[in-house]
């Protein structure tokens, strides 16, 4: 059951960003730090911080949805509150608290560091933007009495899980941006035959309708297809963005029940075709300090 333990990630922060003036940098490839679930290559600027409230309701259809649950509005599959802060224009940190989708984790604390090491330029001397994100998750839920559950936490370190995501984005046109998000998730404790390390390839697209409104689609294809993971699904999400002066709203439909790579990549079992998709929203407010 217990395969191995990973204590943390080492990032290659020695990689230096390209020296270029702000005016040559392509801006707003994606409107904010997250696309829907995954990370964009955007970072907060130095001395900016933002507050994030995100919500995922219950299944709209399927056995747990329908009119009896007001199409999922009666339930909250996950809730996230978080603070993010720009350390430099290319390095930011964030911390959040997730309710957890209860499969198997809840009461999750999340912390991440993001480093944008490439910025797309208008003269195309740098065709893409790229950022590396390292996230650590820790759950403080009670220990399960079931020794077969991964929530039994035989060791304290089993409460910890990690993810690393590389977000490569390009703005092809003022109205069209795309992202690729190769992601690695590491869980310290997994079920028999499951794998501690999981790889996933994410892709996203942003179509801006106006300066303030845009449509977003995002998909994560999980590359590990062992027998133990046949019940797990890939997350597919669609969103509508609304950007105001300092606020950012995203209204979305997704089959991902939980936030964070740990949940929407490694632990997602909801299936669009079974009606197990939900409405969700993310509200952010950015400040300067």
């Amino acid at each position: 059951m217990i395969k191995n333990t990973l204590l943390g990630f080492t990032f290659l922060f020695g990689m230096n960003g390209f020296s270029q003036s702000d005016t040559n940098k392509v801006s707003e490839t994606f409107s904010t730090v997250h696309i829907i679930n995954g990370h964009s290559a955007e970072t907060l600027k130095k001395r900016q911080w933002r507050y994030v409230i995100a919500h995922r309701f219950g299944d709209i259809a399927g056995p747990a949805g329908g009119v009896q649950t007001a199409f999922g509005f009666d339930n909250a599959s996950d809730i996230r509150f978080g603070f993010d802060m720009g350390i430099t224009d290319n390095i930011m940190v964030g911390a959040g608290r997730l309710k957890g989708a209860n499969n198997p984790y809840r009461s999750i604390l999340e912390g991440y560091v993001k480093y944008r090491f490439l910025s797309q330029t208008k003269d195309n001397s740098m065709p893409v933007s790229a950022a590396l994100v390292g996230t650590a998750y820790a759950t403080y839920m009670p220990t399960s009495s079931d020794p077969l559950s991964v929530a039994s936490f035989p060791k304290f370190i089993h409460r910890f899980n990690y993810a690393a995501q590389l977000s490569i984005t390009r703005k092809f046109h003022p109205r069209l941006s795309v992202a690729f998000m190769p992601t690695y998730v590491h869980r310290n404790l997994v079920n028999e035959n499951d794998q501690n390390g999981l790889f996933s390839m994410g892709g996203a697209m942003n179509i801006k309708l106006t300066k303030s409104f845009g449509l977003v689609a995002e998909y994560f294809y999980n590359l590990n297809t062992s027998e133990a993971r046949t019940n797990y699904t890939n997350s597919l999400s669609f969103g509508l963005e609304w950007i105001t002066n300092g606020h950012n709203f995203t209204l979305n439909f997704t089959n991902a029940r939980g936030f964070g790579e740990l949940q929407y990549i490694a632990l997602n079992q909801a299936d669009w075709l079974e009606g197990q998709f939900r409405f969700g929203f993310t509200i952010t407010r950015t400040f300067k300090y």
Partner: protein
Amino acid sequence: MKLNLCILCLASIAFYWGISAAADGASSIKPIDKNTSLEEARITLGATPLIHHMDAFDAELAVVGEQLIIQGKANYKEFKGKRISSYFVCTDCHNLGLETLELTSVSQQDRLDYAVQNKIPFLPGSTLFGVYNRTSFYNDDYYKKYGNLVFGARDSLRNAIQLCAEYCASGRPLLDWELEAMMHYFKREELTLNDLQLTTDEMDLVSTASNKTAKIKGAALSVLNDHYVTAFRAHFPGSLDENKRTYGATGNALNGKKIYESSCMYCHGNARVTYLNLDSDVLSGSFLWNNKEGYDDKSIYQVIRWGTFPIAGRKQYMPLYTTEKLTDGQIEDLMAYIKQLANK
């Protein structure tokens, strides 16, 4: 008795002689040449010193002042600096160098052309170059925005800086050493006669007038005053009436592009100062074009003339452009370019 009287007389003569010599030494007139500072030349010619006149100059403090002006924060000796404002630095609204070829030019178009040619931003505030030599600040309609606060700041550079730091920059009052550091920077950058671009005849008049009659000194002072701006006028005309707007039909898009790139984009490009990110693309163009009507702060006509207001949680605001900094015609130029950007 006689001896005592003689000694007293001699002592009195010696004392008078000493005092006279000392007085002569103190009032010795330095020659005026091209490198003489404007303020020194004015005083030599009998003008009253500026209210914020400084006799001493500290080069080290001037460097600290420059750092405060450009970066909004500096350390000095045992003082550890904190940011004056979380939202602005002085150079977000003011250039530090010349803004026109001629020091006396207040032409909006001269200023724009000079900005484009010299790759400096085209900003709503007057340049800080030669601000030490000005005699009046927050002039004319600034009272409409800042009320009675401007009256204490109008004739004193020190008070003007404090008003700017606390209110215009949504920051805090400067500490004494910060204020003095800025003053020493402005003192370092004060105008010299060389900056005034005097003709040879004018220079001859000014350089020789100090030993001449009050009338000639007055004439020389008059020449000096004609070669620099002592107070920038500032009028707030309000947003152009909707019936008078041509929405770019009478504008020159090429000139509008200059304004957009050297002014709008200076703050909005990559959302450098504000959260509203603008780019030279169809989305930004459409956003501005579609909101052009009415008196909402999304309308170019409104926001340029009134700016926006600092509010709790978002204290970075847009300052307004006075008539003296941007004409209604130039706003139409800008609209013509925005129309192009929006593909309308």
